[in-house]
């Protein structure tokens, strides 16, 4: 499995846990989890994958990565 596909699989796994949490905003929780636990280079790789079409990414994960990417961009701008 390529590293990129592995990251997509890992993100989807995270998504499958948070999606059924009926009292939570799943994309927000997914974004929070990936933001807290993934090294920036892993995040950059998954952003690049999303920018390239996001093949294989489940819907809540796609939304989560989008939000996280925006947050990281904003952080970089502030820095």
């Amino acid at each position: 499995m390529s590293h990129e596909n592995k990251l997509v699989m890992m993100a989807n796994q995270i998504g499958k846990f948070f999606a059924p949490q009926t009292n939570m905003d799943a994309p927000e929780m997914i974004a929070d989890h990936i933001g807290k636990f993934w090294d920036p280079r892993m995040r950059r790789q998954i952003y690049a994958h999303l920018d390239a079409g996001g093949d294989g990414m489940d819907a809540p994960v796609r939304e989560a990565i989008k939000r996280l990417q925006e947050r990281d961009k904003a952080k970089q701008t502030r820095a």
Partner: protein
Amino acid sequence: MSLIHEIDFGTPASKAGETVNLIIDGRSVSVPAGTSVMRAAMEAGIQVPKLCATDMLDAFGSCRLCLVEIEGRAGTPASCTTPVAPGMKVTTQNDRLAKLRRGVMELYISDHPLDCLTCAANGDCELQDMAGAVGLREVRYGYEGENHLKQQKDESNPYFTFDASKCIVCSRCVRACEEVQGTFALTIQARGFESKVSPGMAEKFLDSECVSCGACVQACPTATLMEKSVIEIGQPEHSVVTTCAYCGVGCSFKAEMRGEQLVRMVPYKDGQANRGHSCVKGRFAWGYAQHRERILNPMIRESIDQPWREVSWEEAISHTAAEFKRIQAKYGRGSVGGITSSRCTNEETYLVQKLVRAGFGNNNVDTCARVCHSPTGYGLSKTYGTSAGTQNFDSVEQTDVVIVIGANPVAAHPVFASRLKKRLRKGAKLIVIDPRRTEMVKAPHLEAAFHLPLRPGTNAAILNALAHVIITEGLQNETFIRERCDLDAFEHWATFIADKRNSPEAVEAITGVSAEAVRGAARLYATGGNGAIYYGLGVTEHSQGTTTVMAIANLAMLTGNIGRPGVGVNPLRGQNNVQGSCDMGSFPHELPGYRHISDDATRAMFESLWGRPLDSEPGLRIPNMLDAAVDGSFKGIYIQGEDILQSDPDTAHVAAGLAAMECVVVQDLFLNETANYAHVFLPGSTFLEKDGTFTNAERRINRVRKVMTPKNGYADWEITVMLAKALGLEMAYSHPSEIMDEIAHLTPGFAGVSYDFLEKVGSVQWPCNEKAPMGSPIMHVDGFVRGKGNFMITEYVPTDERTGPRFPLLLTTGRILSQYNVGAQTRRTANVVWHDEDVLEIHPHDAEQRGVREGDWVKLESRAGGTTLRAVITDRVAPGVVYTTFHHPLTQANVVTTDYSDWATNCPEYKVTAVQVAPSNGPSEWQEQYREQAERSRRIVKAEAAE
């Protein structure tokens, strides 16, 4: 220094609250009701002679040496079996008693070899002591009568001998095996004069059910059962209390020494985790510390195909620092990292993460807990607010119903298993959830009420089904939920769990466990009194490891089984310091005390003390490091006390990652498998050679004490300090106590911990601070650490690892009693007599289908790779499931396991691999190649001796 002798009170302490007053030899004595007269006397400082009594065992009353007189009572009752009574007046010494005792001793000595001067127990023999205590001056019966002096000596066990000629048949060994260890391997064979201690079927010790825990040896009052090391070396002259470096039970031992030579390890009765018991590893398997294969000089090489070159410490350290600096200058700050070890001390672990964060300037630090209990940390922090188990081990004594899931404590946490089995023999009920019929399911005098032999990978489903029964049958603890838990989260969860898809009937198709058994187990746990859950890596090492930990947490909250003795959620940690390595900030996203690296206030505190800016972004976890290495962005690693090539999954991928790096530094005792890919080898020190602390599975911080000079020259913490200095990071510590002071200063849960404090109290369970100055044996007593308990929805998601026509069987892996993890330590001890190779357990049906016979070589193959090993045909595993251990590098079980991992933590899914098994002719080509490569890689060019 002198030998530490714990007081032997003769019989166990009574736990009764009521006090009884009596008079012993004219002295007023107050003791709890139920105390024996013998113990009451000893508590008052009056020693009653004894041979068959010891306070580790229930009173037996056979030796008749402890006779006393009690006013108003006829005869001379045995003080060990006579409980105290109010107003009782006891005489322990008078002429009549002295005469009786001398008579008893005469009988013993008339059938005992008179070789005291050359006996290995000389100076440590209770029989000898008692002969003196009773004033034995003659043996009127002579020594010529019928006797047992020509008995055959059994030397089959590698660690102790059994010399029946010296046996006084006090039954202490038999009772220790039953009461303390719970194995029932020994018996008294025959009756009357023919009575003889023997393994159950009169076989040799090595061939018997004996598990070599050493309890019998410890209990023996003579030289009948004697450590071979004492026979060879002689009696020790001083002892030091320290902590075992094997599993997460964290047993306290007395290291009994002659100068700097270790004579034996004896379990310390005041040890609060083990209460005087031990297992074969801690008690006997310490010979690796002196093993000839231990590496004592630093070594470097330019590339991994070259032989090692011995160098000075100065050269090794400066070379390593220069390499890391070069790599960071070329590839960036994040191109290097480190791995801390759960085998090393808290202080050493703390220093490695400090070196990475402050010295390397990134957060690429991880620990071997990544591959075992990382889901415990995350799962329990989300539900309860803290990343640790909730109880102490003593708690099991008040448990009524125990669930053991994904753990085999008999093999992996044997001392705790003995305590658990003792409670079960007293009537507590047991539910085992495990694909295998482990030793817990059925053992002498106990049998699980329910064994739920689920299909590997379906833990979350079965726990959901248990909760479904409890909710739908109204068995939940409403008061606890209302008062202690987040009600909104509970309502959402309750709706989810009550859904029919979680019913035992629906789940049966997934787990293979009958709905009826699940319903029975759920009812028992919910209604049987104090319910406690103990779990191991069979829970965490799954793609849903974290989900399962949360499901366990949910179950305990649902039934109110949290916050008091006898209940709780208890992760059984694999290695000695898994808890500690996690506490010490080994994970790439958090600082010591489980505080996220992005928290500005926490980071500022560390920055201020360490004098370096810290990166606010999480670093790479071990599997991410390997992926990044293959990708080319991670180039150097400092690995302290961890063998990732053998212990991490998908060996081929690990090897590729290591091979892609430019500087791999291994600090260890031996040239382990990872060292085959290393460029620098820094020889490490054993737990006997350094000071520090380990934190066990019950959050207990225990002292590790140096008993000998490090053979390699330095304790591991000193090596990290030297490396940090060479990297420009000053670490000014002169003793590990100063490192602990820094930890306490920076970590709220450790604020009250210091070496001085540990010296006073022995050990302490964190949190230990202003709010809990004496520590916290039980967590979440008045409320959860996070405030309200949080029910998380635990939807079952099948693993992506599926069986199919090519790989129709499921492989699950685990440990065996005599070996420990990658076996680096235990393979270098006599423990190999019990397990000298990894074998594959396969069900008779699956073996028959494949034409596999007992002992045949079989090829075990998965999508990741293949290996060969011998088959053991057993119905301990269910049809469709095979099992092996991972202790031997030439088997390399992890060649077969995949890189699927837990969704939250990347903890590998060791417990589920789709495989095929087929007959084979012998070791595979891969194994032959690996052996060759390993041998080539271990070539050493010795340094020339200095003039």
